[in-house]
């Protein structure tokens, strides 16, 4: 599903972030990259998502059905939470189906009441959950989650973990980035520890 082969990546004018990264994920794999800030975890997710091009090595991603919850929620400030979740569903669901799917995922993450609310009126944790709902709602085959449990209370973390388990049951390949190992372990993730940049895996 995802194959990264001897990747090297550096941002312009900066040193290598990834030096020699090789990683393979198949259907149903749950992998968590753990490590300190700035060590290249998010860059790895961006490369998988096709947002960065590695200077060396190859990247193969076997599905276009990809859900990505970025480190910052990246919500449209001028749209409601529901519309923000719906945005990933346009083109392959009717408007009604997309709204139903969006409401369902918002409800599962405890945001049913906030569906019509704009991001500026939501707390940081709620915004993160909207971003997660957007990633979950596209029925992804590949799920990229950047710090999905950050800023969330215990109940919200449990809801997110349940959603991940549900998607995992449908064969999703999960590549997650996290500071905290507890939830990754609870989900049964294969944890890859990264000591610091440049990353070698």
């Amino acid at each position, binding site marked *: 599903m995802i194959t990264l082969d001897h990747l090297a990546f550096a941002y312009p004018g900066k040193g290598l972030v990834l030096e020699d990264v090789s990683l393979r994920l198949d259907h149903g794999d749950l992998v968590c990259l753990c490590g300190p800030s700035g060590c290249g975890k998010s860059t790895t997710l961006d490369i998988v*998502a*096709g*947002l960065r091009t590695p200077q060396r090595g190859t990247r193969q991603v076997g599905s*276009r059905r*990809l859900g*990505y919850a*970025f480190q*910052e929620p*990246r919500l*449209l*400030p*001028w*749209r409601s939470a529901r519309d923000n979740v719906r*945005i*990933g569903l*346009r*083109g392959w669901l009717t408007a009604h189906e997309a709204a139903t799917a969006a409401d369902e995922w918002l409800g599962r993450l405890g945001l049913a009441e906030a569906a019509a609310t704009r991001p*500026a009126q939501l707390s940081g944790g709620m915004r993160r959950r909207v971003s997660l709902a*957007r990633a979950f709602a*596209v029925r992804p085959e590949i799920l990229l989650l950047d710090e999905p449990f950050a800023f969330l209370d215990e109940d919200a973390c449990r809801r997110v973990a349940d959603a991940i388990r549900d998607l995992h049951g449908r064969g999703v390949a999960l590549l997650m980035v996290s500071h905290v190992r507890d939830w990754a372990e609870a989900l049964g993730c294969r944890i890859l520890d990264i000591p610091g940049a440049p990353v070698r895996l």
Partner: protein
Amino acid sequence: MAARARWESDAGGLLFGMKSVLQRLLPWLLLLMVWAGATAAFGGALVPGPLATGRILARLLLRADTWEHVALTLFRGSAGMLIGVALGYLLGIPCGLSARAMRLVSPLVTALQSCPPIVWISLLLVWAGIGATVPVLVVAAATFPVLFINIAHGTADLDPGLLEMASVYRLPALRILLDIILPGTSRYALAAFSFALGITWKVTATAEFFGSGTGIGARIYWAYRQLDMPLLFAWTTVIVVIGLIIEMGLVHPLRHGVRIEGQGQGGPP
């Protein structure tokens, strides 16, 4: 006692209302006084007084062709601004997204911006002759640079994270335009619209003065050619009143909109 208190309260309200109306009227009364003073100083032949102008204006407003000229000027101004806005978006968005395109187009727009309308009027009179083309294109040339600059800056200031999100979720170009670029640049666009509206009216009349046989600007030209000062003053009053209506009805609400949109998000340049 209660009745007296109510009467006092009503009287107070009335007094406050009258004071407010007086405050609003005061600048206009002052203008009329200065105008009447100028008439007294220079004579009615050079500076027709408010009453003489009012009489001609009343006669003017009862004629159907007056409204035709007003409608023509408004139509030309709107058409020219529409072209300026369309070009502003059409070139501003790609230049906002690509620094290379911006470097290529920006000097040309700056050159265009530094051209006074009179240059365009002269050129267009030669190229297109007298008619509607001159005012429409002059307004387009005058409004395009400000639209372009604002839309390009607004697009460049968009959160790149949103565009990356759009790419991950494979949003088609039209959705990126409608869901991200247009709402994201709306503050900048509103600021540009309010500026463009303010100049459109004046530029249209100027272009008509030199380059068209019809429209308010052309009527001012004919009044000037015949040295018909009361008529010149009457048309000037028409243009000032319409300018004020545009300012109060469109430009002010737009500026108010920019302030509301800009709250907490920073303002356009």
